[in-house]
């Protein structure tokens, strides 16, 4: 087994274990910290899949921005007096649904071999590296979606400010 495969399987199993911890921990702070670990593992997987720019963005946006937001809100909203326990019937139904979805898709993917394989040219791009390739694609072919994404972020920012502000 080559080195990148070992790194991938290690990171993938770490990500799955910490994701399970996110949804099972009772304390929201612990869940948030395990979520950071999951995000870092996913960023490592992006590097293994030679998407280095996206890995950097993942660490900056998720582990930097989103996590600070989560921790602020967890600190602002006090802990519940009553434990938030779901009814057993509900958990059983959810487990059944999730298991069915996972089993059906995994059994499909297990034998699936995508017909196309990596082309000789273009990926990873010859010279310049991943960031230059992403930039070229983003500012040439996807310029309009890029501008719309910035408007989306502006709308989200204004919406968050309006929703969370104290009524005067």
């Amino acid at each position, binding site marked *: 087994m080559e080195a990148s495969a070992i790194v991938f399987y290690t990171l993938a199993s770490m990500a*799955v274990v910490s994701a399970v911890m996110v949804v099972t921990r009772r304390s929201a702070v612990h869940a948030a910290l395990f979520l950071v670990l999951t995000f870092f593992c996913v960023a490592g997987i992006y590097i293994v*899949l030679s998407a280095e720019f996206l890995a950097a963005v993942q660490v900056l946006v*998720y582990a930097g921005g989103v996590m600070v*937001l989560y921790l602020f809100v967890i600190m602002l909203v006090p802990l519940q007096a009553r434990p938030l326990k779901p009814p057993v019937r509900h958990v059983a139904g959810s487990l059944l649904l999730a298991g069915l979805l996972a089993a059906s898709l*995994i059994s499909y993917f297990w*034998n699936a071999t995508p017909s196309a394989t990596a082309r000789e040219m273009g990926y990873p791009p010859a010279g310049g590296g991943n960031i230059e390739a992403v930039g070229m694609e983003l500012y040439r072919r996807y310029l309009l979606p890029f501008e719309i994404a910035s408007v989306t972020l502006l709308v989200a920012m204004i919406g968050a400010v309006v929703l969370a502000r104290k009524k005067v």
Partner: protein
Amino acid sequence: MIPASHIMIFSMILFTVGMLGVLTRRNAIIVLMGIELMLNSANINFIAFSRQLGDMAGQIFGIFTIVVAAGEVAVGLAIIIALFRNKDTINIDEIDIMKG
């Protein structure tokens, strides 16, 4: 080279775990975390197919997914703060005024 099907199975497992979090947890903040996990797993699929097909478009869409996820978290957490201010709870079983 790691087979694409293994990456898809990994992202599938991550998606299922996130879905379980959304379905079973009662704390609205942790429900949002489950949605983050699901978005991340979709992103892994984009990257896997980008590598498999030798096309940069998957990575560009990954960036757009991250943009939308960041906006979603900002608005979602603002909604949680507004809910807590108005109803004094973030237990999603007690927030049922829309049920009629």
